């Protein structure tokens, strides 16, 4: 069966520090991968999605970036965090043309 991992589970970082969040999927090949953010009191905002290695589409211009160095690995990065980057970050996957996306456990990021 398919499994999605995210780490770390929680992270507290000072403003201006770098960020690297990692997501890996097991049990499937060539998944579509997604990064979402849930800010306090808001819905899920799509940040990036990828249909293959090295293929990244950005939905919201900001100081975050994403990379997909391997088929089942998706990384969210920032060179300098802002206070507004605080939130709950979720990685998700889907397969082929399926509509359903399946989410990881999330990372709670607090920028201080």
């Amino acid at each position, binding site marked *: 069966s398919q499994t999605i991992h995210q780490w770390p589970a929680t992270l507290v970082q000072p403003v201006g520090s770098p960020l690297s969040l990692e997501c890996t999927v097991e049990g499937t090949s060539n998944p*579509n991968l997604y990064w*979402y953010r849930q800010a306090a*009191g*808001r*819905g*899920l*905002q*799509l940040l990036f*999605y990828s*249909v293959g290695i090295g293929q990244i589409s950005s*939905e919201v211009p900001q100081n975050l970036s994403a990379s997909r160095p391997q088929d089942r690995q998706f990384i969210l990065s920032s060179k300098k965090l802002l206070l507004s980057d605080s939130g*709950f970050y*979720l990685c*998700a996957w889907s397969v082929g*043309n399926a*509509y*359903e*996306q*399946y*989410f*990881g*456990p*999330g990372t*709670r990021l607090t920028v201080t």
Partner: protein
Amino acid sequence: DQQVKQNSPSLSVQEGRISILNCDYTNSMFDYFLWYKKYPAEGPTFLISISSIKDKNEDGRFTVFLNKSAKHLSLHIVPSQPGDSAVYFCAASYTDKLIFGTGTRLQVFP
């Protein structure tokens, strides 16, 4: 511009009764709709979905209704159970992306 709206931020229902969660959308190009359930500090879990060519889909205690003319969908949970207490998100599919609503917090009390 919020294309998917959940206008009720919270809902409280007695155990055993029906819970009805509502969702409105503005984009007639959406072709598939989904409901997710989310517990605190966890990722959302897929619950049930419906294609835009249907008006009803049922899975056990959960039924989703779609009214395309009104651009409205609803999730019915019957009977409601305390374990159903969570935040429910509706989502709509456009091309290969999902657009989520802001969620409705459901509380089922004894």
